């Protein structure tokens, strides 16, 4: 644990939804180019914590954050943060595949356009191809890029959502229960994809599914009632938890 390079470091992080204290004194370090899983019972604040890293909580009214989150040493909890650059660098994949009601091509083009990343038809197509290859969709979809993305299977849609993020060359990818709408086989395949992606990206995944956390992650954080109770390598947290709460949760005594 000590030798790992830290990508994101949260310090004294507190978050309030109005009067509700949703995150309490979070101290959390996300290792670089690894998969970190956040587990914990429903409502403990996993999504909330994840959404702090790309400041998606800004969309929620009455949401107030104190403390510090540094990504590559740069402060994120700061009014002067460039949200556009931040969200390009820290991409997010949501629980339900949320592809736009547009063609596959245009779903991928959207991000390239808003960040003015590439121009020219050939270079755009090459980039889109690269993005689809990253998520193993190119061969399936190369002949129907103009088809509406909402006609794809849920697994394909979720892969497309990942491609939409990857194509922007982020450094961090946040995934909030990315498999909860998928069947077990699709889930396995997405997990495989995540293992491939961790060579190039820092990945944080929220999951309800402890087996998934155990299968896919290198590090695991356990949250309970707005606090980060325990954090360590996945094997340590699952086989030798330091905290009683963690142990009870992992052994399935509550959830």
């Amino acid at each position, binding site marked *: 644990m000590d030798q790992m390079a830290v990508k994101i470091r949260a310090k004294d992080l507190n978050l309030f939804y109005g009067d509700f204290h949703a995150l309490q004194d979070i101290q959390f370090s996300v290792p670089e180019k690894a998969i970190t899983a956040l587990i914990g019972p429903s409502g403990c604040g996993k999504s909330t914590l994840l959404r702090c890293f*790309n400041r*998606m909580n800004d*969309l929620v009214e009455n949401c107030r954050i104190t403390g510090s989150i540094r990504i590559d040493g740069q402060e994120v909890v700061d009014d002067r943060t460039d*949200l*556009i*650059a*931040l*969200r*390009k660098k820290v*991409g*997010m994949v*949501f629980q*339900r595949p*949320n*592809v*736009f*009601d*547009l063609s596959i091509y245009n779903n991928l083009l*959207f*991000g390239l*356009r*808003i*960040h003015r990343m590439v121009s020219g038809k050939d270079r755009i197509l090459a980039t889109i191809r690269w993005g689809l290859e990253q998520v193993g969709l190119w061969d399936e979809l190369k002949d129907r890029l103009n088809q509406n993305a909402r006609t794809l299977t849920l697994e394909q849609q979720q892969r497309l*959502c990942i491609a*939409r*993020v990857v194509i*922007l060359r982020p450094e961090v990818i946040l995934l909030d229960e990315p498999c909860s709408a998928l069947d077990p086989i699709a889930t396995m395949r997405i997990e495989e994809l995540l293992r491939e992606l961790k060579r190039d990206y820092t990945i944080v995944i929220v999951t309800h599914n402890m087996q998934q956390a155990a299968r896919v992650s290198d590090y695991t954080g356990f949250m309970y009632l707005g606090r980060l109770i325990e954090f360590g390598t996945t094997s340590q947290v699952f086989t030798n938890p330091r905290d009683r709460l963690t142990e009870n949760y992992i052994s399935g005594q509550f959830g």
Partner: protein
Amino acid sequence: MRRAITERIIETCIRLSGLVVILFVVLVFLFLLKDAVLLFGHYPLGQFLLGTKWLPISEPPSFGIIPLLIGSLYVTAGAIVLCVPVGVISAMFIAEVAPGPLKGILKSLVEILASIPSVVLGFIGLVWLGPFLKDLLGLRTGQCGLTGSLLLAFMALPTIISISEDALASVPKAFKEAAYGLGATRWQTLWRICLPAASSGIIAAVMLGIGRVIGETMVVMMVTGNSPVIPRSITQALRTLTATIASEMGEAVSGSEHYYALFAVGLVLFISTFLINLVADAFLRRARQ
């Protein structure tokens, strides 16, 4: 058993009401057609459709519909050009930009706008807007196509705004989250994601607005100068199809050529709105795919 019978009755009622609607449309058409064809016994169809003079009470009379068609076209096109962008942009503002309390106020204002009787608007046009435009643009008369267009645009706005706003508000939140998550600004999200996703609803809103504009009679009769000559620009006095029927029906002797000519005008109006609706439907269907 009881339930099966109730189901049956309900189903029959629904079928019947559907049939009634169709029946009405067909009956209106036949009714117009019956009287309109009587004109063409005396007066050639070609001269009616292509004639450039509408002189119903001169001797011999002339029933050329072109001046009225062009009048309608000017006023309607002017209104559409004005109300579509304003309406859609207002809807975008209300749906996505306005903060909570302002949003509520704007929505009820739009509803109030919708309930202003057209004769009141005509009155405003007559005593205020017309003279104002006359001075502003240095026109010969304020009672012209432009005044009509402005008022009609105003009348179509509530329809366009409220239906477009509904369409925009029902764009799934997940789309917006996805866009913001990718680093899009509010404007980019609105323009590239919400607008296309709401497009079929917005097109429907625009079409309904246009329907209102084409069918409107009172306002155009009051403010467009009521002169059935081919206008050379929108700032001249003119007369629309609708206004012609409304203003001449009273004086036309029942059973006369003039009387039948007005029915023929009505038929043309009916067919044009029918065609516009067909086009609108085609658009909607394409947008849905």
